């Protein structure tokens, strides 16, 4: 079909336009809309029959005049142009410049929708990334090709933590750094500026491509933005052999935009007004991360998800947690105690840790140290809870030891400087120092050999 232009828009509502009698339009194709006043908008076909076509307008449908609108079907999918020149650039959700520089010109164009990776083509991620942060490296290790989100809340330092990880992340014995794909959806100008300055001051800017849609930009564009960003990430990883770290913030605004459009389309809601397909939709994004057989490059993903009202059971963090390979959860309580980074280890998890740590990767005691610290901390939190009810004085000597451990752990293991880059050895040694406050027989998750080698306490 050739490109056709129509003036038959019949209805406009909530980011959608309906066009009548435009036969043969392909599902998913790109659309250009002229508003009749010299402006254009972009759209995508989301329902197609010969009688009626439904179009999602990325810039929104605010003050579109039905009578004046021209719709042009471009007869191509939504694509972006890709070249090594994207590094150092700032683009929008459709891959168009936001930095006042010329558009990316390239014969390489890829549809942003992507397609599913064949599970048989994947290889299991196993390479330990040292982030220099004890709660992550020691207890929730990140590996190359993993998708590990930060679950946060308003006012919590997820941006600072993400920036610290970007600065410090490296393979243990390698110096090779990551190329960064940064995707901002619905964030404030200040947050975007924070990252831009951060990349500039750490000198990585020419290794970063930013895709930005701010809070006051059209929300519908947020639906393509992560897909566009990931298409760029795939290009960097698999065409240019880079190891790519994708930072996406904030997936909550993405999901809210999706809900807005779903409501306008009249889709049946599942929970809290979000459509039933939110899970598959998020999975299409998150699962683009990983390692593939015989490919040198990789995509590691760190999405930021803010939990509405700090509620981890809210559909967005909940569905995210069901898809991603773990989560790093920030806590307001730790934040209020002035602890940075306020990582609450109990609900945090790295599912891919098991194959990335231990003898050949970090240190042989790492797996059991992590298990033991978790067990001690769980009991210590129970004790802290008990102490808050009955008073610390009423505790037995055994319990008081746990109480002290909880405090030491929060202050010394969780808490660290924003530019403090701890090696994994330093993290594990610190763990042993803290665990050595307990008698050997309390450390049943550790083997006797490990205790003989690393235990520093004097008690029984």
């Amino acid at each position, binding site marked *: 079909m050739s490109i056709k232009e129509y003036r038959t828009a019949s209805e406009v509502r909530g980011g959608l336009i309906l066009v009548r009698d435009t036969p043969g339009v*392909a*599902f998913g194709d790109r659309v250009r809309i002229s508003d009749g006043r010299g402006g254009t908008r972009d759209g995508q076909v*989301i329902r197609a029959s010969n009688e009626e076509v439904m179009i999602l307008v990325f810039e929104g449908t605010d003050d579109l005049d039905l009578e004046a609108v021209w719709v042009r079907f471009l007869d191509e999918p939504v694509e972006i142009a890709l070249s090594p020149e994207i590094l150092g650039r700032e683009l929008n959700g459709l891959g168009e410049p936001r930095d006042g520089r010329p558009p990316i010109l390239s014969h390489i164009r890829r549809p942003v929708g992507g*397609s599913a990776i064949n*599970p048989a*083509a994947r*290889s299991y991620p196993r390479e330990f990334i040292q982030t220099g942060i004890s709660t992550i490296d020691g207890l929730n290790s990140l590996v190359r090709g993993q998708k590990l989100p930060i679950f946060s809340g308003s006012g919590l330092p997820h941006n600072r933590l993400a920036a610290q990880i970007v600065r410090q992340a490296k393979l243990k014995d390698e110096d090779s750094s990551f190329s960064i794909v940064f995707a901002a959806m619905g964030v404030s100008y200040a947050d975007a500026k924070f990252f831009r300055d951060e990349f500039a001051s750490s000198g990585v800017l020419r290794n970063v491509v930013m895709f930005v849609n701010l809070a006051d930009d059209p929300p519908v564009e947020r639906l393509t933005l992560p897909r566009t960003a990931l298409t760029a990430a795939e290009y960097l990883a698999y065409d240019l052999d880079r190891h790519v770290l994708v930072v996406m913030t904030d997936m909550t605004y993405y999901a809210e935009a999706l809900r807005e459009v779903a409501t306008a389309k009249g889709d049946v809601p599942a929970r809290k007004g979000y459509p039933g397909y939110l899970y598959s939709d998020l999975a299409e994004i998150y699962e683009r991360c990983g390692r593939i057989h015989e490919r040198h490059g990789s995509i590691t993903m760190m999405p930021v998800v803010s939990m509405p009202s700090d509620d981890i059971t809210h559909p967005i963090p909940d569905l995210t947690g069901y898809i991603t390979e773990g989560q790093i959860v920030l806590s307001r309580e730790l934040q209020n105690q002035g602890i940075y980074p306020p990582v609450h280890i109990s609900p945090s998890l790295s599912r891919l840790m098991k194959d990335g740590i231990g003898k050949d990767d970090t240190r042989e005691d790492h797996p059991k140290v992590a298990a033991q610290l978790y067990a001690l901390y769980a009991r210590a939190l129970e004790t802290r809870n008990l102490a808050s009810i009955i008073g610390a004085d009423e505790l037995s000597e055994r319990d008081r030891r746990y109480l002290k451990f909880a405090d030491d752990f929060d202050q010394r293991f969780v808490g660290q400087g924003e530019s403090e880059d701890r090696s994994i050895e330093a993290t594990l040694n610190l763990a042993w120092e803290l665990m050595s406050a307990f008698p050997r027989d*309390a450390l049943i998750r550790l083997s006797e050999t490990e205790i003989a080698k690393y235990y520093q306490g004097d008690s029984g």
Partner: protein
Amino acid sequence: MSEQQNKGFVREINGPIVTIDLPGIRSGEQVRIGELGLVGEVISLAGREAVVQTYESTDGVRPGEPAEGLGWPLSVELGPGLLGEIFDGIQRPLEKIALESGDYIRRGLALPGLDREKRWEFEPNPELAPGQSIGPGTVLGTVQETETIQHRILVPPDHQGELTELAPGGEYRVEDSIAHLRDAHGHSLHLTLFHRWPVRKPRPYRQRDDGISPLITGQRVIDSFFPQLKGGKGAVPGPFGAGKTVVQQQIARWSNADIVIYVGCGERGNELVDVLESFPQLEDPYTGRKLMEKTLLVANTSNMPVVAREASVYVGLTMAEYYRDMGYDVVMLADSTSRWAEALREVSGRLGQMPVEEGYPAYLASRLAAVYERAGRVETYNAGAGSVTLIGAVSPPGGDFSEPVTSHTKDIIETFWALSKELADARHYPSIDWVTSFSGHVHAAAEWWHKEVDRHWEGRRTEALALLARDAELSRIVNLVGPEALSDAQRWQLEGASLIKEGVLQQSALDEVDTFCSPQKQFALLDLALSTYDKGMTLIEIGVPVSHLQDLPQLAKARRCKSMYTSEQVARINDLAREIDEAFESIRLEYAKQHTDD
């Protein structure tokens, strides 16, 4: 049906739901859509129009493109060559697709499930001769599919007649004819090493079989506390990160089933890769052969098309029933049935059907029940016994077990392993909650345990659960008034419960020694914890202070010994029990001496 009738065209594309104009098409029929030939299935009919759910993305499809009916419902190919493979949700071989289309799955690929070129060594059944009457389940011969699994080539359920020819032993491809039969109408039919079966139709069997044999999984909290029987149906509900997938993978690794079918339904790609990469290395504890030789995978990961997700469960079940019909005990793991239910919901939503709860259609409960009903232990047509055990993970939104999928599932299954976020957060794995979990098979399993392992099994199990219940009660008191309020006996109860939790219930899948635990070792550990507790209590009763017992180094050993001794070293666990006995005895003597001195 003439050529003409089988061709039509696309009217409307609404995501995976495509309306086509194709008179004469039947409900459930497979169709190919558009220039790309996307595969789909008719789910409803209205006059000339049919609504099709497509198993592949419809991006780029236009109204007016051709649509073609294939004349058969969604079916799978059943024959040698299934084991060791990974298929997509409609049985396309993913390894071959990777060779053909690279790292990403290309649309419209029509690759058959079974390899057409591979030759199999067929051994005809020596007891069969031409002239004999044969019917469903008759064993025509065998093929050694893998080192351990002998594939019986059966007459398919819908064939009956007189054998007119049986091929001699030799190498055959799956499409080669290996037998001829003449049916009641005098028609001659030829049978090959494989046949097709529609996935939504349960494969028939002679009758249900009431035999009892536990599915041993090597996981203590399952086998010793909430046992599953072969042919049973079970569910593993839990919030994300609680350990559903690990429970399922542990069962896939260590259960005493002959065949394992692992259906990754709407979950992570890397979890399937984990199985694909590890199973060829891991040894089956029962046969000593590699696990992959008895395993097959069906994968519709969360980023693959939603509609094929709904199909994947039926595809897996049909292959499970096929091996059951050969007389094997099959376990099928579906991770996760919630994603299957969500796929139903998505399609029903697009069809504009009335949602009843949380967007789910009214038929959710009945479909779910029908799926689980395909599990069971049966007497096959050839008088053998086979079983399909079905274990589904359930992923309740927000971890709320009152949501529709979890609550309907709970009404259907017999074994419910409820995972707890609190336990998982404390890294108590498997996080199967001993209060809310249940098994309807305890009595039945007891028979086996008493005969094969120890006649005190059921008693010990009950004692352990009672102690854990007591522990919960005492912990509540402590949280109100502090530990000082407890008597020494009560504190020893807490200690006993902690021994059970740490020494018995907790079992790390990552611990090389403890990842699998034989029934004998399971009982030895349970008995060790309880007898330690019992002995200690007799000391407390005569006045020994609890602090004398709590710090005994042997208690730490009792907690660790699950990882110190393998299933072959059960005697060492009994040695430790004796050592603890002696330690207690010397405390008793010491104490008695002090008291006579006073």
